[in-house]
């Protein structure tokens, strides 16, 4: 499902609210299980939010991944050098950070991914590699809710489309 809408309309806030990162109201179910029935960390392992500019808490890139081998294999498929896991975070470019932040979430195999503009800063090749990876995740049964400003990307990936504008959210039908 792709979410679109003008800047500042609340697309990121919608994703953050679903991940329960800000105080919010409303009922959310995953496989008939209510969000409030689960401890918040467990909920976020299943429904994982990846910010547009995610943070890094250790100096080395590799320290952010529990399963290094899997991370290395996925990094290669995204066109990143395997050696980048040994780099300091400070050496990464914006685009590399963006892709590695996505990997960080993917290796935990969440049931649903909430992605905030996962390809916004990437060149065409890198963006295509990310889309391929997302299609594989969809094929495995992962639900993806992503913010995108690119109508062509939305057309390629989305089975349903949400529009956020002027404080309202509705489903767009073609």
């Amino acid at each position, binding site marked *: 499902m792709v979410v679109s809408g003008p800047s500042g309309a609340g697309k990121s806030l919608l994703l953050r609210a679903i*991940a*329960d*990162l*800000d*105080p919010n109201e409303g009922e959310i179910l995953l496989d008939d299980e209510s969000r409030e029935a689960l*401890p*918040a*960390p*467990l909920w*976020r*392992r299943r429904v*994982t*939010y*990846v*910010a547009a*500019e*995610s*943070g*890094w*808490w250790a100096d080395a890139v590799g320290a952010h991944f529990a399963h290094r081998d899997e991370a290395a294999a996925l990094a290669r498929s995204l066109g990143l050098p395997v050696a980048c896991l040994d780099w300091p975070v400070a050496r990464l470019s914006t685009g590399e950070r963006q892709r590695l*932040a996505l990997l*960080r*979430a993917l290796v*935990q195999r969440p049931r649903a991914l909430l992605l905030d503009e996962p390809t916004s800063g990437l060149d065409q090749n890198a963006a295509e590699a990310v889309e391929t990876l997302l299609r594989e995740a969809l094929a495995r049964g992962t639900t993806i809710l992503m913010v995108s400003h690119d109508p062509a990307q939305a057309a390629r990936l989305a089975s349903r489309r949400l529009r956020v504008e002027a404080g309202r959210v509705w489903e767009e039908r073609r």
Partner: protein
Amino acid sequence: MNFVPLGYGDVAIAGVLVLANGLLSLWFALGLERQIAVATLRMVIQLVLVGLVLHALFNAVSPFWTLLAALVMIAFAGRESIARQERPFAGWWSYGLGTSTVMLAAGLVTVLALTTAVRPQPWYDPRFAIPLLGMILGNTMNGISLGLNTLTVGAARERNAIEARLALGATRWEAFSTVTRGALKSGMLPIINSMSATGLVALPGMMTGQILSGVAPEQAVKYQLLIMFLIAGSTALGSLAAVMLGASRLTDQRHRLRLDRLRPAR
């Protein structure tokens, strides 16, 4: 060896030296004369008043008045511990956190020292309780102040990193671990520094005071050791309580980062 009593006249001779500061200020047009005069006057009045209060307290040896004096000292220490925070908590949390943790740590450690090591009769004798509490409070207050400041500034600066960990399913304690470790370190660094330097760089005020009043150096050293251990324990306890309570206030039951509970940045 004996204690040499001082008259106010003897002190006045030394007081003349302060005039040198004033002359210096006039000579170089530093414009500090007013501040020097006010500071000197304040010091004189505050110390003479404290002398009178302590005199009355020591004569009374009353648990009620001793407790009241201790509470007043704790209230001031609590205020000082949060007075210069860059990102204080909003509302009463700031003062509440500083005062309750300084009271918990310094209170516990002082009572421990009075009932196990020093053992005056009665144990709350203000001649022992008040100076001990004062020395412990001053240092604990510093630890709490530095710990809380590092915690809140760190949480605001590391916001993205903390939320990234939360979003990946970390608990609030895991997500905060880097920031809480930094905060605990900065809370305890001053006491570690002063333990390392004591005896080499600085002769502690209490020890020199005891020596001046005729106590044998090896006894004065034992008292100083006791005080340093008490201060170290109280600082660790106070910093730990303040940083952990602070971290739990900066997050909530659903493991969210709650920077909205800090006062808005100026």
